[in-house]
């Protein structure tokens, strides 16, 4: 599918995602021995956005912040295309798949994959740890190779949903999660890692990446979403 050329990640403040993504993207691109102008695709995966924003895509703000081929189209101009994907905590794996799907359509064959969430507003209860992850990804090259992403919906509970809603009592927008979110035990053994289903997507990806160097053959990374659905990414080194 795709090769991970470089990555950066860190824990961030509640509403620091854009600023952090831009900073980490510059480092990741430099570490991959590329320049920002080599990037032809930006895909962001996450669930929560500041002010419950629905448009434009968060990735367009990353592209703008990095100033990658933002201005007008000419006959010779290079291009960059940006969009977001989401599927709860499984969003990072969907983002990797989408990069693999879309890189063939763009001229510059390097992509920025960004993962993370912002607290939508200060009125939202937020006991989550926010992480920002940025990866430079290509269809080929030196680095860990994502071989496949499989999905499993057999444990999905469709009543376990998260929504943004307007609280009439305080006249502000808040987050509501229906159904009990159960913590799952972290599973980390040779060739396999699965985080806590209470984590946000950024933490799932961060905790996986920091363990990546411990493995030298293949590694399966499973993400179980709050809703029970899961995805498993298989990496080769």
């Amino acid at each position, binding site marked *: 599918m795709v090769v991970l050329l470089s990555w950066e990640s860190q824990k961030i403040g509640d509403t620091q995602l854009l600023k952090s993504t831009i900073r980490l993207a510059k480092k990741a691109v430099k570490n991959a021995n590329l320049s920002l102008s080599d990037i032809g695709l930006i895909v962001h995966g996450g669930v929560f956005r500041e002010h419950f924003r629905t448009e*434009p895509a968060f990735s367009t703000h990353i592209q703008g912040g990095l100033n990658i081929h933002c201005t007008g189209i000419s006959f010779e101009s290079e291009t960059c295309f940006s969009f977001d994907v989401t599927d*709860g905590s499984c969003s990072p794996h969907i983002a990797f798949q989408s990069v693999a799907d879309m890189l063939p359509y763009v001229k510059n064959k390097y992509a920025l994959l960004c993962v993370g969430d912002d607290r939508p507003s200060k009125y939202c209860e937020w006991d989550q740890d926010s992480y920002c992850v940025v990866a430079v990804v290509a269809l080929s090259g030196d680095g860990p190779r994502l071989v496949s992403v499989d999905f499993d919906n057999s444990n999905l509970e469709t009543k376990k949903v998260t929504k943004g809603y307007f609280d009439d009592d305080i006249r502000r927008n808040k987050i509501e999660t229906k159904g009990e979110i159960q913590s799952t035990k972290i599973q980390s053994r040779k060739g396999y890692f699965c985080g806590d289903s209470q984590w946000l997507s950024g933490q799932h990806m961060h905790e996986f990446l920091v363990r990546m160097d411990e493995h030298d053959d293949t590694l399966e990374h499973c993400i179980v979403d709050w809703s029970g659905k899961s995805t498993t990414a298989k990496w080769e080194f």
Partner: protein
Amino acid sequence: MQEGNRFAQMVSFAGYLPEKQVTTKSFAGVDDLPRSLDFVRLTGIDSHHEASKDQGSFELAIEAANKALARANLDASSIDLIINASVSKMDKDLSQHLSPSYATLIANELGASNAQTFDVSNACASMMTSLMIAESRIKSGKVDYALIVSGEFITPIIDEAKRRNLYLNPRALASLTVGDGAAAYILGSSKESGRIRFSEPFTLAQYNKHCIGQASAKHRGPQMRTKARDLQNGVINNLGVFLQRAVEHMDLKWDEIDHTYSHPTTPKAVKKGAKIAIEIFGEINFLHNDSADTANTASTTHGVLLEKSQNSGYLKSNETTFMVSFGSGLAIMAIHFHLPEGVENW
């Protein structure tokens, strides 16, 4: 079939409009707007459709998805991939769905138990972005049938705009140009190449603050703020070169395109864009600029207009269709495809 000799094709599509129709004059009369604007004359939008009290983005999407499945003569269990492209994801009680993906709930409702599901967010270009992803999956052999679906329940932004003093908030004016609707496409595999082609996709991020949709801070429901004129200029200034690059990239002959659709921010804006295309390429065989009674239904616009064209008997099997999409951000992209076999008999 192995990758390399496996291609994608449009198997079916469907648009859905809720029954209730609301005239533009009923909420944007001359007395309601700054400088006594004649909004109908300015935009060309006479009316739009609004979801019933029992419908949100989800219910609208299900209507379109079921229609597309029936036209494709497919059971939902045959679908391997469902991508939801709705921008609004707004429930009937005006709450915004966040997690898991809306596509997961849509798949569950349809009984598509074998499908991978996720959402794509790229404003009004979400549908075309999703079509690209689906085409790639089909060509790679990982997917046999993909359903791309969207329901847009966005007319609450009209109410939000009306609550504002539009004299003081001209950036809310574009909120009066929207309507509710839904669309769905089903892609499947083909042995024939070229039944679907895409342009290079562009994001001109210098315009990423020109149209912002988010929850209203102090009222229930969404709001949209737009620098409409600047955004339209961004499109118009780049459209000519984009179209020339797209036609060359897709290896198209302009005079062989049977049907052309543009994202209808307004019918007047589409006319402006068409003028640019005609100056470069010559006459457009059939421009379906027919959104005067649907308004801008966000990601679903092309599907809604295709449905109207089909209902009017304009579409025939294997004729070719060229659709240009714009989304705030600013995304610009195009698709060319052959209409499904039997479209005239649906």
